[in-house]
């Protein structure tokens, strides 16, 4: 049971002071002023100051006592200038893309691998068979143009840093062995002069 029910009923007997008639008149005047500001459509109400810049007006229709609000944001109007600029940008992009497609680079990569670790050969013990190998490139660095000796044309040197993982499995015992090590690969890509 509520211990405060008596106190609550006493509190509810207290009546808050009523708003002055002046307040009612002021609110009435504000709404009346809003109405007088309407232009062609009597159901259009401008929003209060500070919200008017939201580029919208609220259309209020009263039908059968119901109030419906339809917001007509002007930002959805088509801006022909923006549309034209957008199309021009798209056309320029397509032209450059086309140029790129027409001239695929002639690449004959020459690779230089770091030597594989010695574990690869020593692991090949009896009973273990290769079960898988993965190679994950985690960093690629373009080191720019180089002129290696013995080549007539410049080469672009690209360095790949990878992690290779080799896995073996012994089908007899079910044992598995996995070796993971970092590796690095340098690729020299001939650069066409045309």
């Amino acid at each position: 049971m509520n211990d405060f029910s008596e106190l609550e009923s006493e509190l509810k007997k207290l009546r808050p002071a009523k708003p002055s008639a002046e307040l009612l008149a002021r609110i009435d005047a504000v709404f009346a002023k809003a109405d007088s500001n309407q232009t062609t459509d009597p159901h259009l109400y401008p929003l209060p100051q500070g919200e008017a810049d939201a580029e919208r007006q609220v259309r209020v229709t009263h039908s059968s006592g119901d109030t419906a609000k339809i917001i007509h944001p002007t930002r959805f109007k088509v801006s022909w200038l923006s549309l034209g600029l957008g199309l021009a940008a798209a056309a320029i992009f397509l032209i450059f893309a086309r140029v790129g497609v027409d001239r695929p680079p002639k690449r004959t990569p020459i690779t230089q691998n770091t030597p594989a670790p010695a574990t690869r050969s020593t692991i090949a013990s009896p009973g273990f068979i290769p079960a898988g190998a993965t190679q994950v490139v985690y960093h690629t660095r373009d080191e720019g143009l180089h002129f290696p000796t013995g080549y007539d044309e410049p080469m672009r040197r690209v360095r790949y840093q990878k992690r290779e993982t080799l896995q073996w499995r012994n089908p007899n015992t079910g044992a598995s062995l996995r070796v993971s090590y970092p590796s690095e690969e340098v690729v020299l890509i001939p650069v066409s002069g045309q």
Partner: protein
Amino acid sequence: MENVANHEDWKVCFSEYGPGLLLFARQWVRSPADAEDIVQEAFVKFWRRNHRIDNRALLYATVRSIALDLIRRDSRRARREAEAFSDVAPSSQPQFAVEDESQRTLAAAVDLLPHEQREVLVMKIWNELTFAEIGSALEISQNTAASRYRYALSALKKNLQPQ
């Protein structure tokens, strides 16, 4: 004409909620005129957006927000905030239409409540908001609102007990 100025709905709503809103606004300002300014701004703003009062929590949150804005932007901000949150400063004018001495004592005891408790009490007793609505308006949990309400009643009961 079917428009806001001639539509009587807002007057019906205001006659129902006006006194409670005014009392609620008086939590922050001592002057009834300031409270009426707050209520006017909040009600007009709310009504223009909604054209009905189906979200009372939002209406009271609007009043609260405008009241706090008024306190902050007013040149007498420091003094008003000190008054509003002092928790002991009595109102300069009565907030209730008291009929007898016991009601006057009760109103005075309400006025002495800590601000957070008085705020919830006003919303619950004289505006008949649910704890969920109070929580939503004050941005506190429903349980916190209920706790503050109980603390307020407890404090009132204690203060009203004969010494």
